[in-house]
């Protein structure tokens, strides 16, 4: 994928036929460039940033730190914007990043029923399923059914809390730390933290699932 984006003028021309959308977007970019509104090199840089720099590895580091450092965890749950900035993994966070903690008694899940609001700064761009009609429609009234689609079953006595991201506040789930990880380094802990576990549609990996 990355290769295709490096030279916008000839991307995808190795294919035999250009799709309608490829043609349409190429025309749009040409028009906007000729009108002086956009610089194609800046478009390349935006794409590169989202393909290589911003992503769930950032959130995983935040979670691993919270699992390892009780004071950081308190700070994160108190004001995630401030705590994540202080951690120095990124240099800017939206106004209101809110971290919510999963426990054996309470499972938090994040959705945006109206569009695709998602904590880009710590998780990168949302996956297709997060933006899809099945997830947006069902997360708020059938969260256990949605979890089943991910192969996740919660104990029946675990309560469910769904956060609908209807404003510019953004949410990240602090998943439960797996057992059997005592003494692990933050780096090793981060390898257990999946994107889905930070959206609330999955759990962190078990120690045996990583090399």
């Amino acid at each position, binding site marked *: *994928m990355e290769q295709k984006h490096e030279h916008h003028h000839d991307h995808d021309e190795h294919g035999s036929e250009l799709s309608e959308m490829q043609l349409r977007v190429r025309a749009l970019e040409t*028009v906007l460039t000729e009108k002086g509104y956009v*610089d194609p090199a*800046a478009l390349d840089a935006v*794409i590169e940033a989202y393909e290589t720099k911003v992503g769930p590895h950032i959130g995983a580091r935040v979670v691993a730190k919270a699992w390892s450092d009780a004071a950081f965890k308190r700070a994160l749950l108190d004001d995630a914007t401030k705590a994540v900035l202080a951690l120095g993994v990124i240099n800017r966070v*939206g106004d209101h990043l809110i971290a919510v903690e999963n426990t054996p008694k309470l499972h938090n899940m994040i959705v945006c029923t*109206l569009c695709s609001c998602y904590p880009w700064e710590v998780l990168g761009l949302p996956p297709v399923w997060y933006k899809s009609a099945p997830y947006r429609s069902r997360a708020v009234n059938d969260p256990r059914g949605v979890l089943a689609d991910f192969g996740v079953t919660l104990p029946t006595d675990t309560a469910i809390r769904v*956060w609908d991201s209807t404003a510019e506040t953004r949410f990240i789930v602090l998943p439960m730390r797996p057992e059997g990880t005592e003494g692990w380094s933050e780096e090793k802990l981060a390898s257990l933290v999946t994107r889905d576990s930070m959206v609330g549609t999955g759990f962190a990996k078990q120690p045996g699932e990583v090399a």
Partner: protein
Amino acid sequence: MDGVHDMGGMHGFGKVEPEQDEPVFHEAWEARTFALCWAMRYTGVWCIDQGRFAREQLPPAVYLASSYYKKWELGLEKQLAELGLAGADELAAGHALRAGNPLKRKLSVAEVPNVITRGSFARPAQKPAKFKPGDRVRTKNIHPRTHTRLPRYARDKVGVVEALRGCHVFPDTVAVGKGEDPQWLYTVLFDGRELWGESAEPSLKVSIEAFEPYLEPA
């Protein structure tokens, strides 16, 4: 607006289908569309809520049948045409047929690292907050034909203010060019049964982020 974008609680869309090892973009044109939307918003010709409203106004059948970035692309074309920034004739020709309008700024490579995170929507308060955590509130039964961030499933429902989240740009006004009109924002928590009736999962609680004009005391 009461559009098909407001999906919370709708039936019939089927299962969620997660994709293993999903790429950030599936097609090169998706990446270009994403970046074009980003770069055009940077010029200051419209704000994020105007972009959302443009996508919401796509014909319902088009909205539902289009992939995520196709909606972005169609919304972008619509905004460009409405503001006279680029015409359908030019997109059909594949070249500019007229000179561009002067814009406030243009995204440069050097500026990209500074703008790839989300913008700031917090604003100084115009008046004290009307509600505090613990207050019972009822969401208003509103059905504006324009942009709103109060989802249909959470209208005319009683909930509890859980947190005050500061004062923010009000999407309902800024999306239609009526100014930022900053409003207090609250997390309002509802019981599943208040939203979905007796069939709701007993332990379910759902919260929305509600701007003060959406709420009245209950």
